[in-house]
């Protein structure tokens, strides 16, 4: 199986490759359009700022490429946010694969422990749907680091509660996405990555 990890101007891309290596899965980190188009599975990871990254994707024509992919695609963290319709981070239109909009967490002062932004650390998932979560039953902890979130909408496939319920995962057709980092989420995250490779 050919697995392509899209290489672009975002951080933490190698972490996904390392996580797959720990599962004995060989992937290629590449920005080569033909390799991405012909891969059996594509992973679109990333940590960074939305508008800067969107500008980069547009300049490289990677925006059109990602939208056009027909094989299973997994967006992670910023990858997921960029697959939404719009992000408040730099007020940028995004790829529009999912209708959901990305907003800045608005902490409620005075309420203990839910006032910190970024949402950083381990939080529990619930309302799980899709094969990505096969073998998990909700209540599983995964690792998040983000200040912006996608609201709950029709494509929501997992929910996490922080300040408010938000989309921890989205799915539409062949497009899967997680706000959390499966590559950093211990055995639960490894299971999710393995599910994407083997079952999606």
């Amino acid at each position, binding site marked *: 199986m050919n697995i392509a990890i899209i290489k672009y101007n975002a951080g933490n891309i190698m972490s996904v490759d390392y996580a797959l290596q720990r599962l004995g899965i060989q992937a290629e980190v590449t920005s080569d359009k033909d390799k991405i188009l012909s891969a059996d599975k594509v992973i679109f990871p990333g940590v*960074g700022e939305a508008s800067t990254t969107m500008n980069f994707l547009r300049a490289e024509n990677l925006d059109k490429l990602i939208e056009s992919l027909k094989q299973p695609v997994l967006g992670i963290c910023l990858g997921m946010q960029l697959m939404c319709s719009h992000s408040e981070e730099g007020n940028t239109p995004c790829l529009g694969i999912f209708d959901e909009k990305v907003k800045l967490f608005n902490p409620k002062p005075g309420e203990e422990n839910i006032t*910190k932004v970024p*949402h950083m650390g381990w939080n529990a998932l619930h309302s799980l749907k899709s094969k990505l979560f096969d073998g998990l039953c909700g209540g599983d902890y995964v690792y998040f680091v983000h200040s912006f979130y996608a609201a709950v909408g029709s494509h929501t496939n997992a929910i996490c509660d922080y300040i408010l319920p938000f989309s921890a995962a989205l799915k539409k057709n062949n497009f899967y996405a997680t706000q959390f980092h499966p590559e950093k989420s211990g*055995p639960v995250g490894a299971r999710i990555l393995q599910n994407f490779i083997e079952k999606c």
Partner: protein
Amino acid sequence: MLAKRIIPCLDVKNGMTVKGVNFVNIREVGDAVELGAEYARQGADELVFLDITASHEGRKTFVDLVKRIALNLNIPFTVGGGISDISDIEALLSAGADKVSINSAAIRNPNLIDQMAKNFGSQFVVVAIDAREENNTWTAYVNGGRIPTEKELFTWAKEAEARGAGEILFTSMNHDGTKNGFACNALAKLSESLSIPVIASGGAGNMEHFEEVFTKGKADAGLAASIFHYKEITVPQLKNYLNEKGINVRF
């Protein structure tokens, strides 16, 4: 609900982890990659690796070590120690570090925080502050706690946040190595004055101290070294204890 994090800290010298008590009397305790992976298996939520090697050769070894850690570890980790410029930081990030902590360099050149946040995002930037309380004033120190500075803990932490720090790692030099508990009053004040997470460090001696640091100290994460390295407390033991006390931890 967001879980409180338990973070073992590994001081690294030439690839081996060591622990200093009150910043002196250093002794070796184990291989950094093996120890890190073992903590991850036990349920540690995150790890911090601090490079205490001074030499240039040692620094290069550390970058290689960070790559080995990234390959073997399935939880997030922060690296720090002696980091002074953007090129150091880039090397550590491309080796696979999730976060980089800066301490003395941030005090000497606060712009480094802005630069890091702009280039890599706030989530990469941990500002570590070693501070000592004297006459009711918390003073930040540099060079591994050897040199006092003009910076006062709370104003400096606020400034670091404004410049783009994603987390504050506060070590109380009064408490570090004593095993008498964390600096809960200062931690609570810090946590309430900031909107970014606070990692508490210095003073952990028993499981009650962790309960206290999350309740009274309002910390988001508790960091410790020797009690884990010498197996005085194991991570699963600690998490079970905290869970029984009604503190949300991850299993």
